[in-house]
């Protein structure tokens, strides 16, 4: 199953702010250089302003990451609604329509749209059928050094297996009481071995996790 996690207003606000700062920094640097050219320099600067304002996002969104530097830093990416990479046409549409999101002033329309919609889309995203989502990050590998694997007492569906592995991964950061309390909820998975062992229920469940991650 493909799971997309739409990104909401707070993170997109900061991604946008960062991109805006980058654009202004580039313009400032250009202005420093072009100042010596007088009127011609001013003309070039205005063209650069136009190009940066409208094509900076399009250019970066069509790169393999599908994200401007600001979005990339915050772990965001732009996709089509289908989950495919954003197409050139859609990227142009969503960025040209920033003009509509800007109305009446200060991106008010875009802000309201992002706050009220379940998928946090702004008007440009609606028109282009795109969405801004969090880039999936693989969870770090589970560290279970020195734990003897132990098969579960019953057959476990994949979702429950994932929960037991997640439990083992979080074990170092839980208090012993809380770990045992949680493990006692999953007694059915470890029950068979519980009578003949000195291990706590948390340790038994960690052993089952070790078996589930394939170290047998």
């Amino acid at each position, binding site marked *: 199953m493909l799971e997309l996690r739409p*990104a909401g207003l707070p993170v997109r606000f900061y991604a946008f702010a960062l991109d805006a700062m980058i654009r202004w920094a580039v313009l400032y640097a250009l202005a420093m250089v072009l100042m010596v050219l007088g009127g011609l320099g001013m003309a070039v600067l205005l063209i650069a302003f136009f190009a940066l304002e409208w094509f900076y996002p399009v250019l970066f969104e069509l790169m393999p990451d599908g994200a401007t530097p600001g979005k990339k830093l915050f772990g965001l990416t732009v996709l089509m609604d289908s989950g495919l990479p954003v197409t050139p046409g859609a990227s142009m549409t969503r960025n040209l329509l920033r003009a509509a999101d800007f109305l009446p002033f200060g991106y008010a329309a875009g802000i309201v749209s992002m706050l009220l919609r379940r998928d946090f889309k702004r008007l440009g995203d609606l028109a282009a059928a795109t969405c801004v989502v969090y880039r999936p990050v693989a969870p770090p590998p589970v560290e279970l050094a020195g734990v003897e694997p132990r098969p579960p007492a019953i057959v476990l569906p994949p979702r429950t297996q994932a929960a037991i592995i*997640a439990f083992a991964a979080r074990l170092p950061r839980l208090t012993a009481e809380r770990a045992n309390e949680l493990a006692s909820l999953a007694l059915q998975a470890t029950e068979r071995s519980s009578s003949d062992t000195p291990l706590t229920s948390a340790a038994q469940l960690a052993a089952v996790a070790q078996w589930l991650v394939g170290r047998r």
Partner: protein
Amino acid sequence: MQVDAFAIRLRTRTPWEATDLGIRLCQREIRSVYRCYWAVALPPFALCLATFEIANWLPAVLIWWLKPWLDRVILFVLSRAGFGQSTTVASVWRSSDVVLWRQLLHSLTLRRLSIRRSFTQPVYQLEGLRGAARRARLRILRQRGGGIAALLTGGFSTIETLLTIGLLSLLIWFAPPGDSPSLASYFVGERAQFFALAYAVCYALVVLALEPFYVGAGFGLYLNRRVELEAWDIEQEFRRAFAH
């Protein structure tokens, strides 16, 4: 905490995703949130606007000052929404001693100045801890998500300003034709007085509309931090999988 009573599917989320979770929670309960918040906040806001007669900058300052206090109503509604309960104005009224009057002085002084207030408010309002226990609790919670909470406050106050100017700019957009005043006339003279009043009214309207989302986003951060510390997501999944 009755984890199995949650009306939210828990999983590990980044702090930014957690703010979105809070906004989603607010969206789902938007009717009861607005009904309760407006019922409580409109009278004080009206009084704040009336201080325009004293000084034209006073209404906005007073509204800004009262925000954290009135946020308690929103948090009350959202915390119940987390368990799938709707809240009516009557239930806010019945709990008004807890929701509105407890920690009143604190809400109007130190809490007003806290940059992470939406994130830490649940500790003050919902956990009922005091003194050293509360300080220890806040220290643990802030270790992750504290920075995002500060960014959240900065972001939402900027957004608040943008929306206020946006609303205000409608006045200029829809000004009658033929009357094209200079920009300076908005800041001095007779028109400036009207403009200051319009600003205060727009600001009040924006706060009434936007504040629940800010409180919601901070509440999401808080919830996520507790999910992380106490592995509520795993408890929820174990209870579902091994239900007898």
